């Protein structure tokens, strides 16, 4: 299983089931990583003192230009997962020539439908409890159409299922990582 993926100068590694480290040269940005060394950190859960941006906010973190996107569950369709509007966030990270889109834990929200215009290089897609099901993941892949999809997962079977559903639309690459919380 590949452990790190380099696309357009960005190296993406999984840290824990839902954490990810994006490196450009010697600089790194970690999203949802609890432990380990990183130059910059962001979290997709808007709570307490965890560093994060609000949807719509932008920031430059060293080599990384970050834009926060909406990530929430849709109550109107009975989606009762983790995040209500204002509780979660996704990120679009640009560095060098790559654009990484981390959707955050979300449902199939309207904002995803327009994400295709972003021309994301890598889509980081959290799967599992509180995040997308593989079937929803397929819808996200079809909306975003990234060059590469990297599932973030606790149970590899969900990543495999997403692969079988979505490989027709985008290149899915399942990265190794610790699948349990550190």
């Amino acid at each position: 299983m590949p452990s790190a993926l380099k696309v357009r100068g960005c190296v993406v590694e999984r840290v824990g089931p839902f954490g990810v480290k994006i490196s450009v040269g010697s600089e790194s940005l970690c999203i949802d990583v609890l432990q380990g060394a990183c130059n910059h950190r962001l979290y997709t859960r808007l709570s307490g003192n965890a560093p994060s941006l609000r949807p719509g906010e932008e920031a430059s973190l060293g080599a990384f230009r970050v834009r926060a996107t909406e990530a929430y569950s849709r109550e109107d369709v009975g989606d009762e997962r983790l995040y209500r509007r204002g509780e979660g966030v996704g990120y679009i990270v640009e560095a060098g020539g790559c654009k990484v889109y981390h959707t955050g834990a979300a449902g199939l929200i309207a904002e995803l439908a327009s994400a295709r215009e972003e021309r994301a290089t890598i889509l980081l897609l959290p799967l599992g409890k509180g995040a997308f099901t593989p079937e929803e993941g397929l819808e996200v892949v079809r909306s975003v159409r990234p060059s590469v999809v990297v599932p973030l997962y606790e149970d590899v079977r969900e990543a495999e299922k997403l692969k079988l559903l979505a490989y027709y639309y985008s290149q899915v690459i399942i990265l190794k990582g610790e699948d349990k919380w550190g």
Partner: protein
Amino acid sequence: MGVVPPSMKYNAVSVKEYQRLHKESVENFESFWASQALQLKWERAWSAAFSGSRWFVGGALDPYYNLVGKHLSTTLRDKPAVVVEWEDGSAEAVTYEDLHEASGRAARALREVGVGAGDWVAVIAPQSVEATVAILGALRAGAAVETIFTGFGWWEVMRRLKRRRPKAVVAFSELTRRGKRVDLLLPLSKALERLDYEPEVFVVGGSSRWRGFEELIKGPSVKESWIFSSESPLVGFHAGYEDDFRLVTHRAGGYLVQALAVTRWVGLRARDTVFCTVSLGWITGVSHCLIGALMLGSTIVFYNGAPDYPHWGRWLEIMDYYAVTVFLTTSTALRLLKGNVRAAGYELDALKAIVVTGEPLEAPLWQWAYEELGSGSSPMVESVPGRTGRIPVINTYVQTELGTFVSGNLVNSAFAPLLPGSAGLPLLGFYLDVVDGEGRPLRGEPGRLIVRTPWPALPAEVEWKGYYDTGDLAVMDREGYLSVLGRRDGVIKTSGYRISPGAIEAALEESGAAKRAVAFGVPDATRFEAVVVAAEGEPEHIRRAVRELVGPIAEPSLVIVEELRGEKRWLRQGLRERVARGR
């Protein structure tokens, strides 16, 4: 094992219907291939499809546009073109747009060092992004490319460079195999030192002596790419003959027409991800794994490392985690997998075809691949649950001179039933026949495998004289299924590679490792044939000399110490029979 009909989800046809289509294609081979040529974009139309050993005479096309350029105005622009996994688990993906940018830079750098139309660029590199960029850069600059297998020893590399005289060489400084560093600079230096001219050298991984690969891709990108006449050289190889390796040069027009058509027929499409284990130094690696796959807009997955490191499941893991849809490999590789790995524990449901090449694929091995690798975890509509096989395993016949696969089954076209143990039926447009010494067709018994009509990738070195003798021994059954048995001459087939016994002998004799040497192949359960060398000298010294001079693939499994008298041809034959008798 009987014939296995393709699932009805393909364009399945009966053998009879396929025979009709095939007959039509070879009876009108010029118009058949002319119609295939329309799949390419031509800058200037050809005046004759075939005339005087040349195809698409008078035509001109931009090879780069037909490989990559045409995808840039489509959604394939952002699709990964090449994904490489290295032995340490790190992976890299480049999109078609990335390849466009990098190859444009390489083209400019190559032009700046004087590379242009009519020149050759040698690429001595493993399957990698860098090799792909170098090849595409050379084509954009107007040069033809010879790829040289990284497993060759310095002497063999030197002789290839001497014959082809490339103006630039792109090489790797090292590789990692089973966690250990393999130095490629030393053999490269030895080869280059013995040339009577100095090519421009670019080295991936750095070297104090030559330019780094970074210099090839640091400048601005060219916007345009070179238009080749249909008859210009495009790619070159060396093919093993009894006396030595010889040049094989494929011309732009015909080669590209054939590479596109055949790669599509055997199973690749834009939506596919192909995992190819055949090195870029060999015809399949270039024609199907790279050029054909790029022309179709597929994603190519390369693995750069040992197949058994850290365990034999490495290739299956790659197919699982990269959602591979087509597995292109050799019979030798399948034989090694069969003895060492089970598919259980790997999710291979995305796989839709296994294409095998290199040497005969015996029926039990075919069955193993079909049931073990091809069953998947969820059965298809028509298949029975369990490990009963559900995707086609296609065996093919290929030869450097022929340019592409010429027999097999057409997954993406008229798909006739599979006959396990055979190399399938002659592909459309290729008139293969098995004949006796007088040229009379033979069915059901071994004979000479010949080609009766010219094929588009007819090499520049072959003057068409009514038929072409492949040098292989084969059996064709009444329906046309081909079983290739091996070489009729002394050429050694090992692990899918065609090794010249004359080249091994010359390396030993010219280097002084042996006063006289004779090399030949003997049957081998895993690699089809193993190399045996008879010479006067110390066996370990001979073994080491072959490994260093020609390469590890030619390393003899047995060295017979013997004084050699008489003609080599008869010596080879006599010794081969002796080894076969176990004496």
